[in-house]
């Protein structure tokens, strides 16, 4: 990513009203070339509306959108149409034309832009090759599986060589395995074509595996924004935390059931660690420096953009309060978060 570049896309104080209530309420952000920006938020947060504002499917009530430094609002209809061709979009429900063969679906954007029949055909076949569906060119959409349909949609979205790809819950209708293959395809395309991707999802796994930056949207406003690494490691906002909850380890139910908040054999500690600390043998250091042994009950270390983020539930003997106190202090000092959640 070249930070000195002008942003590819810039939204300034966007507002979108539906019957006088602001569904998008003063949103500003910019997207640089070859970034993968993830937008997460609860259902109804305004994610779809926001992304539809970008390619003109929704008109904005106030604010400005700059695409490749052009202010979209100041363009005439024709120029705006040309810009839409530079922005590809894929959807949860595919939106393929049932009346057209796969190859003609992929070629449609080219037909709309007036490309010759031979060129359309050649390019559509090339694109189908990229998404490994050249053998389905003569089929109709109904004959394809969900994953295949989404591949066709990706091919179609790329037909006019867009610089941005918008994805609105594109994998939400697919099973985990198919989702994974679509993500791999997107990653491949991104690096081959230097594509910029903005993707909406409610699946944190997707953000974790392909996004570089993250925006958390709630009630039409940006709650939190930052690199995926930072937001995942240290979510600041309660909404963000609860959205991220699904990928955090949870206490095994047998232990959760026995948990009390006063006393017990073991203290259960929720422990988050990231950055350089996470690369250290920290449990060994804990033992060496405090003489206390911590047992991992649940959790592990994952890597997001090459940075380690660890989340654990640890058990430490609680029979000697002074020693526990010392161990807990050590953990608190070396972590992003340490909290005694109870005793068993």
């Amino acid at each position, binding site marked *: 990513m070249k930070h000195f570049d002008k942003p590819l896309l810039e939204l300034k104080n966007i507002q979108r009203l539906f019957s006088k209530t602001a569904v998008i309420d003063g949103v500003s952000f910019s997207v640089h070339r070859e970034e993968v920006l993830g937008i997460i938020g609860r259902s109804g947060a305004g994610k779809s509306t926001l992304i539809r504002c970008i*390619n*003109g*499917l929704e008109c904005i009530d106030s604010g400005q959108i700059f695409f490749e430094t052009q202010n979209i609002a100041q363009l005439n209809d024709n120029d705006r*149409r*040309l*810009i*839409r*061709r530079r*922005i590809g*979009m894929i*959807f949860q*429900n595919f*939106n393929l*034309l*049932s*009346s*057209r063969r796969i190859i003609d679906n992929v070629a*449609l*954007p080219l*037909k*709309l*832009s007036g490309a010759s029949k031979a060129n359309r055909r050649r390019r559509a076949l090339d694109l189908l090759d990229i998404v490994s569906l050249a053998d389905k060119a003569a089929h*109709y*959409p*109904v004959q394809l599986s969900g994953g295949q349909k989404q591949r066709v949609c990706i091919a179609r979205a790329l037909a*006019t060589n867009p610089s941005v790809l918008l994805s609105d819950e594109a994998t939400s209708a697919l099973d985990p395995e198919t989702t994974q293959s679509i993500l791999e395809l997107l990653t491949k395309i991104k690096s081959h074509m230097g594509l910029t991707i903005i993707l909406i999802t409610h699946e944190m796994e997707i953000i974790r595996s392909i996004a570089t930056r993250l925006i958390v949207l709630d009630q039409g406003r940006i709650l939190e924004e930052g690199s995926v690494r930072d937001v995942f490691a240290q979510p600041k906002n309660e909404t963000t935390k609860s959205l991220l909850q699904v990928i955090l380890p949870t206490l095994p139910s047998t232990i959760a059931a026995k948990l009390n908040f006063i006393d017990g054999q073991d203290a259960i500690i929720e422990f988050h660690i990231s950055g350089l600390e996470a690369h250290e043998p920290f449990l060994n250091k804990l033992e060496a420096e405090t003489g206390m042994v911590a047992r991992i009950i649940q959790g592990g270390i994952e890597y997001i953009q090459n940075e380690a983020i660890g989340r654990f539930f640890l058990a430490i003997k609680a029979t000697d309060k002074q020693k526990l106190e010392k161990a807990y202090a050590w953990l608190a000092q070396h972590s992003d978060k340490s909290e005694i959640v109870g005793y068993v």
Partner: protein
Amino acid sequence: MSNLEILFSLVPRAVLDTCWMSAASSFFALFFGLPIGLLLYTTSSGNLFENAWINRPVSAIVDSIRAIPFIILAASIMPITRIVVGKAVGNEAMIFILSISAIPFYARMAELSFRNVEKDLIDTVYSMGATRFQTILEVALPEALPSLITGFTVAIIAIVAASATAGFIGAGGLGQLAISYGYQRYNPTVMTSIIFILIVLNVLIQWLGDRITRKFNHSR
């Protein structure tokens, strides 16, 4: 004349008359109804050429004509028929009346077919940078096609039925034969034969319509 003589001498001509009247009226229903249906669809609120100033009056005219029973419509537009066709009776006059009655009918059916094209598809093509005319040509029409054909089949069958009714008011064809031999002279054999022919005609049209629809329907 014996029943057989009646059947052999009059029926072929009557079948031809009915087919001619129905075919011509169906053609006009399609020729004018489809564009009016498209107009109703595109000018309705939230659609490509949203325009209440066009949509409301056209809607009102279409619904008014549809509200009038066929026989009464035929009688009430008699002066217009005379101006357009030159006379108020005969097959050509009936084609005019049948068309006037069928055009609004098919316009509404076509509008419904267009409405059933998913809004998301329209949006998708819009987001590809399509013009509004391209959206109609490349999406609305091809996607609605199977449904438009089904609707047209229904319209043709309604027209055949109406053309039989038109026998009461001076049209030729099977309707007139059924009325003069079946209804006025009560000849069960002739009447049954005509009913049979009408049934066969309907079944045939429906079968053909279904076949063509299936040919264009790739969503199943």
